[in-house]
């Protein structure tokens, strides 16, 4: 039971001459919130892209614990013919994006239904003939979609176009959509970016509820330190592609290296 859900081991990611991540190692424990922080361009999103299978890490391993023991993300992506990032999602890692990527011209419910395409009966003939099995699967998918809409306080917007929603709701819809894939680990890339304080508070409640009530493991990138300190159990700090600190929020918040590279000193301390 002590194996972490996700284990990142010595991952290096290069784009030609640029090294976006150098020898990064950290782990994500089950059922908690792990935060990945660091200054702009530190390589956080790149790390996410490696974890979620959009990039193949140049070196190192990313292991996701599953029923058959740890599984390397890299082998899923490079599988011949059928391989690709979609297999990573199927293995249990869902994500949201730094720039919202919703299906803007589809309704909110449809966005969530697309996420459930694996559980709905995906058979041409049964769908065209509307067999009972197909209808049951669709009904369950719609109900699950409404369940997550309820969790994210979006039920009223169910039958609107996703692109019409206000920004804050689009952010939550993206989380709901990721949750509809039934992930073991959900990766949120700057979920509070562009939100006002009250929306941010609502978001932190949503994330905490995911952990407490659903036992969901969350990995989050965030620049809002207030939010990070409030919700996370474990913080990893990246700077220039390298891990400079790793531990509890208190430990990281007082780490001189982190203060120098990212947090800075508060005004009172400067005046002293």
């Amino acid at each position, binding site marked *: 039971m002590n194996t972490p859900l996700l284990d990142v081991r010595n991952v290096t990611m290069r784009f030609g001459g640029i090294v976006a991540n150098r020898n990064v190692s950290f782990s994500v424990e089950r059922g908690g919130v792990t935060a990945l922080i660091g200054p702009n361009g530190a390589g956080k999103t790149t790390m996410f892209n490696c974890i979620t299978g959009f990039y193949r890490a140049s070196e190192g391993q990313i292991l996701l614990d599953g029923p058959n023991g740890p599984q390397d993300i890299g082998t899923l992506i490079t599988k011949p013919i059928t391989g690709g990032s979609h297999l990573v999602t199927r293995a249990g890692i869902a*994500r949201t994006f730094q720039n919202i990527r919703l299906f803007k011209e589809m309704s909110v419910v449809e966005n969530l239904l*697309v996420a459930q395409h694996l559980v709905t009966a995906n058979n041409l003939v049964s769908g065209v003939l509307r067999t009972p099995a197909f209808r049951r699967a669709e009904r369950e998918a719609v109900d699950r979609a409404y369940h997550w809409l309820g969790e994210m306080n979006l039920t009223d917007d169910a039958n609107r176009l996703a692109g019409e929603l206000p920004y804050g709701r689009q952010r939550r819809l993206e989380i709901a959509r990721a949750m509809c894939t039934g992930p073991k680990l959900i990766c949120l890339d700057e979920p509070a970016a562009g939100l006002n304080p009250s929306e941010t508070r609502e978001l932190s409640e949503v994330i905490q509820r995911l952990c407490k009530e659903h036992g969901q493991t969350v990995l989050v990138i965030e620049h809002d330190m207030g939010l990070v300190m409030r919700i996370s159990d474990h913080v990893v700090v990246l700077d220039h592609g390298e891990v400079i600190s790793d531990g509890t929020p208190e430990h990281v918040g007082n780490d001189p290296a982190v203060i120098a590279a990212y947090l800075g000193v508060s005004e009172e301390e400067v005046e002293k």
Partner: protein
Amino acid sequence: MQTNRLLTLAKQALLTFTVSLILFAPISGLVLEGFSFRNELTRAVLLAALVAAGRVALSLVGMTAIGRKIAGKAASNGSGVTVMTGKEKSPALILGLIFLAGLSLPFFADKYFLGIAILALIYCLLGLGLNIVVGLAGLLDLGFVAFYAVGAYLLALGAQYLGLGFWSALIIAPFLAGLCGMVLAFPVLKMHGDYLAIVTLGFGEIIRLVLNNWLEFTGGPNGASVPPPTLFGLEFTRTAKQGGVPLHDYFGIAYSADYKFWFIYLVLFLVVCLVVYAVERLRVMPLGRMWEALREDEIACRSLGVNHVFTKLTAFMLGASTGGLAGVFFAVHQGFVNPTSFTFFESALILAIVVLGGLGSTVGVIAAALVLTILPELLRDFAEYRVLVFGVLMVVMMIWKPRGLVRVQRPAFFPSTAVKGAGTAPLSASPEAVR
């Protein structure tokens, strides 16, 4: 104030006049005569003056209250996509009436009109097929006519070499065309937008050139003849040629060449209805939703576990299958196929149908297919200007209704029972997608 307006009007008129003069002078001002040409500049000036006058008239109308109202209405149709409320009346009655009207058409229409109707339905089928690829999956395919050709030549060559009949071709064509779609799709699936368009364009030309140049097998430019259709061994010719019994002999009625067209029309009509039903179902099925999601955002799709390669492949194959079906009907209707029927212009026409109709809208595509095939027939007298009218229509459409004739409507979904945490959800009894 008044003089100000007049001044802008005059400026507009002058500008329009100059631009149209530049356009018209070489097109209609110079007339070729053997190896030299004649100057007809007055004609160009007249045309340009006409255009300028039209522009001024438009502006004047735009200044009146009524004109402003119309302009406001035309401009206000925003994004072009709406979600249904779930309270719409079921269109079953209207659909039933249209179905019956369609079935009874042969009993009213004369042979000429029936021919147009068959052609219109063939284009419906082509439009529906391409709509899957371009409208739903968002893959720009400029070589769709290739699959149409595959269907048509399957019947022609299949009859010649393998003794295939209309019915067996009708069943094999979707599969063969789908297979061709798959062959094409494999190398191009990693491409996007423009690159995809170019490759499919090339594919369309390859098929046409093969058909044109492989003399021994396809008959080349001379084409190949297609046997008339049969119905349970009954033939539609005056005397039996395929070892069956002529229809009129069997029923003891007088021979009429129309029966064949009646038969083709009815089968085609039923096939179109089936395809429409299937496409409408697809839009509320996981596969159709994945296509549309892929059109909206491929990266987001991958993050949701959608196998984008496989999904695009299915779109290509199903679209191609529909094109193949249309090809069989085209061949049997013409009784003869040759490569000139499958040029790029045909692909462009089908694409125009899809774009005019509104990408992704089934009703729009059908409407556009009917308009674009029936209109040219009505405009027979202006046959020379058909392409011009066509172009003007496209430009006008793109300005006033860039999203196509018919707005796309998204289905509404409601939960089957009270779902936990759903406070104010409208709890409809119907769990199904309301369409």
